């Protein structure tokens, strides 16, 4: 889809297994700056593993993971974060005993951009009023936002968003959708893992469908819903 020349992130032939269980098998796609790509698939299809391989929590067993033209598969997480890859977590991982502001500050000081505006991020996420509260006292949804804020504070070029929509009400979902589109408009590439297909349809032009670790489909979400292989993967065969 997107031309190889302008790709920011490129995966090809990526394979990951745990013991005898193959979790990712020959996965390959690329993402361009400013693009929002959806990653969908049934539970256990390898979505989060794909995010983990890109962000460096795991290393791919085979295949290529390159970012801005550089092979990053052997780089540890913090190096990838400094290069401009960041992520949020399905279960938010905030620094519970630090204040909301400190959570953002830590990332702002160690990330790729040294002059991050902490207050602007707090405003963007509607967390300014909670800035001096311990992060552990926030609701799960607020922690999800803070998790995203921690990622943004490092000044990412590629942002991996893992199921941020679950548990949000429609108004909150609208807010997140607008925020993600706004980030993309600033040139940040996004990969969004999501079960809420409506939400995805609104913000993505392209989705990648995984099933049992393989790529089943790449294209628009509408086209995906008519693809027999995708339908079989979602509804069982």
């Amino acid at each position, binding site marked *: 889809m997107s031309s190889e020349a302008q790709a920011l992130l490129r995966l090809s032939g990526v394979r990951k297994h*745990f*013991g005898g269980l193959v979790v990712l098998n020959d996965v390959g796609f690329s993402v361009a700056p400013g693009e929002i790509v959806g990653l969908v698939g049934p539970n256990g299809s390898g979505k*989060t593993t794909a995010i983990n391989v890109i962000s460096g929590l*795991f290393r791919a067993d085979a295949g290529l993971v390159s970012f801005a033209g550089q092979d990053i598969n052997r780089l540890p997480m913090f190096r990838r974060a400094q290069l401009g890859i960041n992520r949020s977590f399905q279960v938010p991982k905030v620094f519970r005993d630090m204040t909301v502001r400190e959570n953002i500050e830590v990332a702002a000081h160690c990330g790729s951009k040294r002059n991050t505006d902490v207050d602007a991020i707090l405003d963007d996420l509607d967390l300014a009023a909670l800035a001096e509260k311990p992060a552990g006292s926030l609701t799960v949804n607020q922690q999800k936002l803070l998790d995203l804020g921690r990622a943004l504070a490092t000044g990412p070029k590629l942002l991996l968003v893992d199921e941020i929509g679950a548990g949000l009400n429609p108004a909150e979902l609208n807010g997140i959708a607008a925020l993600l589109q706004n980030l993309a408009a600033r040139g940040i590439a996004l990969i969004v893992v999501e079960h809420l297909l409506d939400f995805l349809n609104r913000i993505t032009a392209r989705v990648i469908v995984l099933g049992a670790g393989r790529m089943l489909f790449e294209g628009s979400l509408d086209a995906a819903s008519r693809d027999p292989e995708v339908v079989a993967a979602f509804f069982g065969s």
Partner: protein
Amino acid sequence: MELLEYAIVGGILYGVFFSLVGIGLNLIFGVMRIINLAHGQFIVLGGYVAWLVSRHFGFNPLWSIPLSVAGAIVVGWPLYAAVVPRLQRSDDPEMLSFILFFGIGQMIEALTGMAFGADQRSLPSEALGSGNIGVLGQQFPDSWWIAAAVSVSCILALYGYFSHTRLGYATRAIMADRDEALATGISVDRVSAIAFVAGLALAGIAGMFVPYLLGSVSPDLGGELTTTSFAIVIIGSLGNPLGTVIGGLVFGLGTMLMQTYYSSWSNVVPYALLLIIVLIRPSGLLGKEARHA
């Protein structure tokens, strides 16, 4: 050749006994993810029970086995109720239990010191038969064979419990996946309490033989017994009680071989084994691959 045979037969006997020394620690960890750092001190208590039974009251020290079991119930049940559920609700049960049971161990050590004095106590060797039994021409005292036999019996009993009783099935289910066991309606608390008491009872039984295999028992022996148990348990993989038998044998053979050929270095064996194993294979020799979500 003589020496090697001696070391191997002795190492197996010694190792089988040390499987019993370690197995209680592992059972408690496997079921509760609680590290009983007072394990060695509970073993020492078992040793003193045997000492009281034989030196003070003049009975055969084997009578201390039922007494240790009774003592484990009397001490273990309230102790379980007082600390374990509370620890399991905390952020980091493993580390907190480690520190808490370290404190309990220090208290036991202090109390045994006050009650029995700091001296080393030994048991009458003739109480368990004064002869030797030979295998492959190697003679070992009767007490060593009895210790090994009791150890094998305890391990077989544990194995039977796991594989032939409802509670044993439930225990294994909890070891495999605590949350799932809770969800399927297993009474995790009751099964855990039984495992906790059983862990202490096994420590107490092992304690009875400590004066025979290590020469004597004293209050300050607990720490060393705990680390040795930890080494054995880690060699066989933490959380897998039957792996402890492998750990015990590796430790027993290693110690006996060192004692035979480089005796001045034999006290390094458990610590060196522990370091090597945790660095090469943190999950132990029999450990599963680390699980991933």
